[in-house]
Every structure is written in C-alpha cells, then in structure tokens.
C-alpha cells in the first residue's frame, strides 16, 4: 500500500523542472507568445531528450514505457512553467490511439517518431466531448468530411481524428483536401485551430476497439489538463505567497495582514487535496479501468473550479501588479482558463460523470 510518488517519479519531476526553468521559464514563454513561431523547437527537443515525448510509449517503440500517472506528473510541470510545448495530444492521446486501435504496422510507423519528437501529432476529438458551432467529422468511403475545432496540439505533422461514430483516423497535416484555420485564444502557449475536411483520404485505425480507444484518450486527456492546472495553480499560489512576503504597504509586509493570509490559506486548502485527486485519477487510468472515466471527469471538473478560484485569488493578492504583463502572472491565469474549457467544461464533464454512474435520466 503506497499512495505517493516513487523516487523515480520525484526525479522525473525535478529533471523536468530543471530543464524548463533552465530553458528560460517565463521569459521563454514570453518570447514564444510575442513571436510569430507556432512551435518552440528548443523546448520540444529538450522534452524529447528527457524522454517526455515518449513517456508512455513502450520501449520497443523507442519510448520509455512509463505510466499515465508519470505523464500526469510531467503535465503538472509543464503547467507549472507555462511551457510552450505540445504534450496532451502528441505525447499522450495520440500514442494511446495508436496503442489501443492501431495495427502493428501503424504502431511501428508512428510511435518511434512520436517518441523522438520527430513527429508531432495533434488530436481532433473535441466534437466527441461536445460539438460547438455544428462542427463534427464524418467518415464515408474512407474519406473524411466535416470540421473539427480546437485540435489539441494543433501545430502538428499528423492528426488523429475521431469521427462522429468514434472511429479513429490518421491524417497527414499536408493531406489534400485538408484546410487549416489557425485560432488565437487567450492562451498563447498552446496554439490551436480548426481543421476542415473536404473528402480527405484518411488512414483508419481499426485494429482495436475505436470507441474504447476514444474513451481512453478522453479520460487521459482530461487528467493531463487537470494535472496541468494543478501545476499552474500551485505556482500561482507560490507566487502569491512570495509576493505577499515581499510587498510592503502600510509599513508592513502584506503577508502579515490576516485577509491576505487567509486568501493564501484558502488557496492552499482547496488546492492541496487536488494533488491527491490527480494522482488517483492518473493511477486509475492504467490500473482501475472501472473507476477511470468517472475519476477523470472529477479531476477535470474539480481542478477547473479550484484552478479558477486560485487564478483569480492569486491575481488579487498581487494587487495591480497581478493585472499587468510586468510579472506575467496572466500566462498562468490564461493557461488555467484554457484547461477549463478544452475537452469539456466543468458542467459538461459533471453531467458525463453522472451519466457514467447511471444517475442521469
């Protein structure tokens, strides 16, 4: 019985934190956000060197063969440093698609490239978690038609696309008939956009159970976003505490004011149990298949709510500075905001949790 991180897991987190702070931390994120590049190759390369891109890919395919909990721990660090890097799609959901629904040839063709970071894969299944704007993709006669919005890790070479029947397909980024429309969102660290399929020839993943693979991808994707929020929110709390200790008003550090202390205590009190929830949900993905979908919903919804509270409260503790670009706190605020909506907002995800338990009418 051990519910905690192994030494190896702590080392993974530390290594990732060292790399991400060494690679520039907030300043790298700022430069990425300000520039015209839609990828940060240095960050991606570093992650590949650390094995993060191949974290859950089996060693036989060039990965390191770790668990989805390890992936969640990596996501937490990426959120903590608001890293401008693809992850939930290319390193988690796309490999899961290949592992659960791809045939041996597809796995051999793509998994090593994903593991090495040579290929970045985007994942288009937002419509399965809730279609907006009438979007959705249909497969007819081996070709895809329709529209997919809010692709996870959209700046990609390859797309894993879920159709309305929860079948999965591979589409090259330069496939004829595929039109890409870049979106701008509040979160400059994770580019996204829309794909329009006009009879695009696609390669189906049909070795496994498509709907089951889609379910696993959604569950894992939600836990990754929750973990990302955990890391970002923890950092916002840490920044708030540090700022409050240093900021003097009325002749004393504002950290000595009970109102400020209580704001920080409330953030800590709501956030600390979230860490265990994310661990459990991450563990469940691999080991507790019956619990995994519901726990992924709860992790996603609860971290969205707590994340929103922490994002707002940390900004308040920073006073006017929190509102400016000078301290850059808004990168964390917006990252948490993005994680809230993608793959299902809190209401939608709670409704799904109820349905999964047979509680919905």
């Amino acid at each position: 019985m051990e519910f905690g991180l192994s030494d190896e897991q702590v080392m993974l987190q530390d290594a990732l934190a060292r790399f991400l702070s060494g690679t520039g931390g907030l300043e790298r994120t700022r430069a990425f956000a300000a520039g015209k590049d839609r990828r940060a190759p240095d960050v991606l390369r570093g992650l590949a060197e650390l094995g993060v891109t191949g974290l859950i890919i089996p060693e036989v395919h060039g990965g390191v063969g770790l668990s989805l909990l390890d992936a969640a721990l990596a996501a937490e660090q990426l959120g903590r440093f608001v890293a401008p890097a693809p992850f939930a799609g290319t390193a988690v959901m796309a490999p899961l698609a290949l592992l659960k629904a791809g045939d041996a040839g597809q796995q051999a063709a793509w998994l090593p490239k994903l593991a090495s970071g040579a290929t970045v894969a985007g994942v288009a299944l937002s419509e399965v978690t809730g279609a907006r704007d009438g979007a959705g993709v249909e497969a007819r006669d081996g070709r895809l038609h329709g529209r997919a919005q809010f692709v996870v890790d959209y700046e990609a070479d390859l797309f894993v696309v879920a159709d309305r029947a929860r079948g999965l397909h591979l589409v090259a980024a330069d496939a004829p008939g595929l039109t890409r429309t870049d979106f701008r969102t509040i979160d400059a660290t994770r580019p996204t956009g829309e794909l329009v399929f006009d009879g695009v020839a696609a390669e189906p993943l049909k070795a496994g159970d498509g709907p089951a693979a889609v379910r696993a991808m959604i569950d894992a994707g939600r836990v990754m976003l929750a973990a990302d929020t955990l890391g970002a929110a923890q950092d916002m709390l840490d920044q708030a505490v540090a700022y409050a200790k240093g900021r003097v008003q009325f002749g004393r550090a504002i950290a000595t004011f009970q109102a400020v202390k209580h704001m920080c205590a409330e953030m800590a009190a709501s956030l600390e149990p979230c860490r265990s929830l994310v661990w459990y949900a991450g563990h469940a993905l691999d080991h507790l298949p019956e619990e995994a979908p519901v726990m992924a919903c709860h992790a996603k919804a609860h971290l969205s709510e707590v994340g929103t509270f922490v994002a707002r409260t940390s900004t308040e503790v920073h006073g006017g500075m929190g509102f400016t670009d000078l301290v850059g706190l808004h990168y964390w605020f917006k990252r948490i905001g993005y994680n809230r909506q993608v793959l299902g907002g809190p209401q939608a995800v709670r409704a799904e949790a109820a349905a999964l338990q047979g509680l919905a009418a």
Partner: protein
Amino acid sequence: MDLSYSAEYEAFRAEVRGFLEANRSQAPGHGGNGLTWQKLLIENGYAARTIPREYGGYGGEPDILKSRIIAEEFARAQLSPGLGGQGISMLVPTLLEVGSEEQKRQFIAPTLRGEMLWCQGYSEPNAGSDLAALATKGVLEGDEWVINGQKIWTSTAHLAHWIFCLVRTEPDAPKHEGISFLLFDMKTPGIEIRPLVDMTGAANFNEVFFTDVRVPAHQIVGRRGEGWKVANAILRHERGSLADPNVMQSRLNALIDLMKAETLDGSRVIDNPIYRDRLMAIQGRVQALRCNDLRLLSAAVNRQSAPLAGMVVKLQGTELRHELEGFAIDVMGELGLLYGDTPRLRGGGSWQRDYMYFLGLIIGGGTSQIQKNIIAERGLDMPREPKLAKA
C-alpha cells in the same frame, strides 16, 4: 415609493429627445466632429451642465434627475454623451472646489472644450492601496518645483497635454500631510512614458517617470501639504462609477442573446437547465444592484442618506461583472477561449476582455480587501486594527 417622474421631468426628457433627433447628424460617428458636438452639448446644457458660464460651462442648477435623464436618453439614442476623461470628471470638480480663481479661468474652459487633455498621477509602484506612502519628490528650487519619481496606472498619459499629480513636497511632515497637488505640462523635459501592457493584452495604462522635471511654483492646487485632502474628496466619486448597474443590465441582455445563439451538441445553451439556473442567479443579483442604484439615486435627489448602499457598489458590482463575463465564457466553452484577431470570435472578444478587465477593477481603485475594511469601519462602525508595536 413613486417611480414615476413629474411632469417637469417628463417635459425635460421630451426636450432632450427632441434635441437628439434634431442633431443626430452632428454627433461623432454620424457625420459630426467630437469637439463641435461637445460645444453644442455645453450650449444646450447636456454637458458641463452645472459648471458656471464664466468657466465655460452651461451654468445650470444641479439636478440629479435631469442628469440621469440626459444620461439615459443619450444611451438610448446611442449617441456620444460628450467628452469624458479624468480632466473633466476629476480635475474640473477639484478646481471648482479648491482651485484659485486664476486656475479656474486658465484650465476649466479648455478642458471642457476638449482642447486640453489630462492624466492623473496618483498611484506609484509602492503606493497602491497605501496611497499615503507615495515617494515622488518635489523640491522647491527658487520658483520651481523639481520633481523626481515614478507614477503608475496613468491611463491616457500618452495622449494627455497636462497631468494633475500628487508629489511629496514636505518630507518631514506626517505622511498624509507632506503631499501637494501639482499641475504641469506633459511636454516638460524629463518626463518619460512607458505603456503598461496588462492581462487583456492592451496598454490601458502607463508608467510615467520623472527626472528633474521643473514645474513653476504657482502650479499648485491648494496649499503645500494639502494634496491628500484635495485628491481624496474626488477619489470617492470614482469608485461607484466602475460598476454601473445599467451597463450590467445591457451585458446581461447580451448574455441572454448569446445563450440563445450558442449551441452544444446541437442544443441551444439557453435550453440547458443548469446554465439557465446560473443565468437566473446572476439576473437576481443584477436586479438587486439595479434596485440599490435606484435607492441611491432617490436618496441623492431627496437628500436622504444611504451610506452603506453606496459603499457596497464597487465591491459587489465589479465582482458580479467579473462573474457574469466568466459565465459567458463557460456558455461558449472552447469558443469562449478565442481572443484577439481570430476566426469564429464572438462579440469581438468582449467577454474575455471584460472578464479580465473587471478582475482588474476588483483590484483597482481600492482592492476588495480595502473596500471591506471601509465597509466594516465606516459602514458598520467596527474598530480599526490596533496600532502595531514599533519593530
């Protein structure tokens, strides 16, 4: 309790409507020019209404209801209510109250006409909630103040011709009594303006740096060391206006339209009972603040007192706007993340912008923590925190 307006006021309302209909073509955005429009409004008493004629105003009697009617009718006609800005809203009332006759004659009329734009130099990096801690120094050398220091949150500094500014001129006086209120030209050598980008992505504010800025000694409002008093009377007016419940009502209406238009899995969001419940909870709170506003208006008209009702407006109003805008983002889901120049953007990005901007307003102009101290101490008569021992 009588929510109707008397015949006199109904007649006044008709007069305003008549004016707006007749002059629509002269309004900015409808073919007219902002400065000409301002002149026309002042001549007719729809701007600078209560400011004496000798200073360039209309010279009317103060009448809260007429002011409200003017605001309502201009909003309904969607025509500009004339020029705003901190010169007109803050400096002019200050000068009228405590300025010298010469200052009134020199500054008020061009400010009202829009020829003289002002910015406000109060906040500093280390003097936010604790404004009395301000450190920008002014030293009298001969007949000039020599000013060094930094201001922050200075909106429109890059557009302003002049600044009204708090400066510490009496370093040995108690901290509230060592500040003076100075006016000076933004073209004076030694002033550097840096835009301050905020979380909305816009530079709504600036930092302003002063290095040996020389200002004629007579450009002081009130006496040396009275700057805190001069500034404070006006600051209070600013707080309520950040959370106008009538603006909130129109945002709520826009939200309802949004919920009717947006769909999730093919169903209108308004048809989802959970979202509808949240909408109604917000509507109830908006109604409470609208009724509170009506009470404040009535109290002002009838010279009654409702101090607590006034004190809570900023705290409650900015919080509610932040929540309302955030709820709209939830309504749109992933589409609510879109921001800036991007396809599929809803409402010009206003929901995200105002969600962030109102978080800024929760903080700005006195954080929620400061507001709660004020409500507890002035509104509920609770004791101040005891003095600290010297460290």
